[in-house]
């Protein structure tokens, strides 16, 4: 952004309404606009955001018209998604002779079709996928219009939730794109932006979040509305936690900064409400000796401080928090104030209906595994590849099976995080918080429609490497692809064509993950981190 860009932006009514004096000197409004924003141009038909994508930025429309596609949304072809497909028994058997001697062979003809839908720029990350027949899309879909002055994308940017709708440029449009950091500062220091963002959130997402929690599930609509009006939301930690986490891993200091995690609620204080985790992760810990003992971690849908708050309401005496709650990287939290709970929630619930907070019932000697999972952020995984090293005979049958089901190249490395005879291998964990999905310019990396696992559409992947760089666990790899004749495929500039690859959990294979089926000693499992800790699958000695 040049000074002229910032000047022009400052003249825009949506920005001009912001009182620059409210911002502290070290976070000046101009600096935010310059450092955290950019002006982006879209041509007619260009897709700006796709439904289901994760993003870390919001947009202010400066000029032009955009269309929001209402449910059921655009077809998967237009969004660059992969059609769910499962191989038949015969097709899976045919891989025996269809797999080529050269790995990563692709059909180049398919790429030519896809290339016709992408507007490449000098930088891969600025590539736009466009809709060729805009009038037809407008005819076939219900749409809403966005014009100059409208803001969109802020919920996904601040709340780490998937984009709820696809938005494309109807006519040539100019947008101001602002990163989550800048957006957070605007919300913090400008009451107008705060009101706008919060109202939008209350209108669009809060009801579904509260309604999913057992505490509010059976509430009457009017009472729920009253609760919604008083709920406060706040974001702790860094949205880009994966960047700092990677730096910590490289320096070998992961787990050493637990004391510096942003505190959401401190042990020993009287709670000012119940905390509901909306996105991200938080650590529940308690003081022990001179340190903090990790009790557990909380993810989306979990709550904190309910037992103390309920106990205080029932007894009339204040009860202090038994544990601390701190942000693990990044967490988005809702706080339901005590007064609201006392008026609308607790009187209508029997004691048996109050969900219990986490309890610690393990010995200190068994803490190490939990601490390790939390410190290494392995809690993010829903399908982590866990290998029992006391059973694994290192035969690599899992690797060979993966290779034979993925065109000759395995999608994981039997190597990774090791702890006390257990290994979490370098295989995609299909994370709860899939940071790899942020910033994909073509939407190639996405959640599978039916299975929910994170997959990459090879046809629309342009090999920019954004996902591979974002993955905190180094579980995505770029491979150079070959033509059926075995020659390296190259683009117009004679550069090798690369594709991002990772474990897809054999979503198109009958029988589930080949790695699990291939292990002769049942040493390899795909596990959900929360189930792993909750059910004590890994037992300590």
């Amino acid at each position, binding site marked *: 952004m040049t000074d002229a860009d910032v000047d022009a932006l400052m003249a825009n009514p949506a920005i001009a309404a912001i009182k620059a004096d409210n911002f502290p000197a070290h976070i000046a409004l101009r600096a935010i606009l310059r450092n955290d924003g950019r002006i982006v141009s879209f041509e007619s038909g260009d897709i700006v955001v796709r439904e289901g994508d994760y993003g870390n930025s919001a947009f202010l429309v400066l000029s032009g018209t955009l269309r929001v596609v209402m449910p059921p949304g655009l077809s998967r072809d237009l969004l660059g998604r992969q059609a769910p497909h499962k191989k038949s028994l015969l097709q899976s*058997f045919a891989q025996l002779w269809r797999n080529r001697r050269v790995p990563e062979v692709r059909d180049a003809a398919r790429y030519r079709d896809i290339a016709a839908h992408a507007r490449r720029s000098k930088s891969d990350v600025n590539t736009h996928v466009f809709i060729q027949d805009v009038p037809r899309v407008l005819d076939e879909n219900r749409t809403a219009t966005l014009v100059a002055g409208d803001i969109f994308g802020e919920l996904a940017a601040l709340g780490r939730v998937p984009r709820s709708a696809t938005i494309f440029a109807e006519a040539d449009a100019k947008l101001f794109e602002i990163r989550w950091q800048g957006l957070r500062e605007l919300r913090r220091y400008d009451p107008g932006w705060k009101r706008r963002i919060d109202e939008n959130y209350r209108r669009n997402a809060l009801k579904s979040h509260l309604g999913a929690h057992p505490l509010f599930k059976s509430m009457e609509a009017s009472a729920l509305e009253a609760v919604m009006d008083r709920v406060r939301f706040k974001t702790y930690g860094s949205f880009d936690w994966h960047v700092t986490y990677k730096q910590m891993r490289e320096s070998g200091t992961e787990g050493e900064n637990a004391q510096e995690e942003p505190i959401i609620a401190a042990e020993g204080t009287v709670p000012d409400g119940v905390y509901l985790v909306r996105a991200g992760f938080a650590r529940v810990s308690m003081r022990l000796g001179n340190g903090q003992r990790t009790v557990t971690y909380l993810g989306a849908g979990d709550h904190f401080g309910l037992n103390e708050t309920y106990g205080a309401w029932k007894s009339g005496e204040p009860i202090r928090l038994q544990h601390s709650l701190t942000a693990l990287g990044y967490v988005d939290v809702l706080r339901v104030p005590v007064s609201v709970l006392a008026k609308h929630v607790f009187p209508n619930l029997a004691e048996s209906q109050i969900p219990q907070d986490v309890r610690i019932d393990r010995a200190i000697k068994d803490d190490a595994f939990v601490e390790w999972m939390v410190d290494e952020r392995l809690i993010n995984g829903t399908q982590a590849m866990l290998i029992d090293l*006391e059973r694994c*005979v290192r035969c690599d*049958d899992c690797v060979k099976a993966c290779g034979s089901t993925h065109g000759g190249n395995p999608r994981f490395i039997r190597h990774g995080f090791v702890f006390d005879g257990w290994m979490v291998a370098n295989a995609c964990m299909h994370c709860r918080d899939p940071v790899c999905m942020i910033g994909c310019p073509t939407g190639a990396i996405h959640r599978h429609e039916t299975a929910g696992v994170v997959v990459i559409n090879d046809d629309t992947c342009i090999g920019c490497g954004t996902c591979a760089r974002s993955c905190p666990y180094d579980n995505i790899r770029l491979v150079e692809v070959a033509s059926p004749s075995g020659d390296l495929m190259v683009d117009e500039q004679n550069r090798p064509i690369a594709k991002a690859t990772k474990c897809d959990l054999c979503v198109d294979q009958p029988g589930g993950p080949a790695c699990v089926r291939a*292990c*002769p*000693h049942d040493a390899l499992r795909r596990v959900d981190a929360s189930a792993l800790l909750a059910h004590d699958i890994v037992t300590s000695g």
Partner: protein
Amino acid sequence: MRAVNRNSLLVWGLTAGAVGALLFWRHSVITKLGATAFVTGYILFGLMVFLALYNTRKKLSMVPLGRASSWLTLHVIGGLAALFIFAAHIGTFWPLGLAEQVLATLFLLVSASGALGYYLQLWLPGRLARRGPEMIYDRIPAELARMRAEAEAAAMAAADVSGYDTLGRYYVESLAWYFARPRFSLNHLLGGRRPEVWLRRRLQTIDRLLSDGERVHLKRLEELGAAKTALDAQYSLQTLLKSWPMVHVPLASALLFFAVWHLIVVHVYAR
């Protein structure tokens, strides 16, 4: 302790019952002077073909043919059952004909190598996990080469500190042998501590000739030596785990080939 699977217990029970019934039938027929060799022979041959299919299952990992662990359970139970059927089939301690002796020898070698492999698979993974560091087998040589280069650099660097080549010369005379390639493989397999003792003695020998500045580099050599010892152990144990199928599978192939030949010969000459 591995959990005993209920299904595998059922298979064990059913197989034991089937083998028992076969042996009982054979005994009752023999007491009436009947012939049982054709029946037991064909059952044994069928079982051997089934056992060989386990390796085919490994090659067909892209096809949903059930879990490899179930196949391994059946492979082990079938292999044990084959021993009893083999004994029933030959009906004596050792066959008389040369061809039958070759066949029997192959059978016993395949059985023995299989049993040894199974034992190794139960025994070695725990030792590998406890010993650490966990490293992919194919990466070990490169890691050893990296350690060797670092050790050589440390030995050379000592000369820069003191102006004497004492440590460098000693490295060439003694320690270079250790860093050259994996050493003490058998001792690692047996779980011995000979490499540690060897290394400690060598390091103690030179320690008294070095200055404090040189000892910093000797300390680094000691660390590298300890790391290499652990990696050597990984290499030895993993080599053994990867090697035994190289004996078992070719022998099993030869056994199947001779079994087919035996079948043809029996049919030709039994007419």
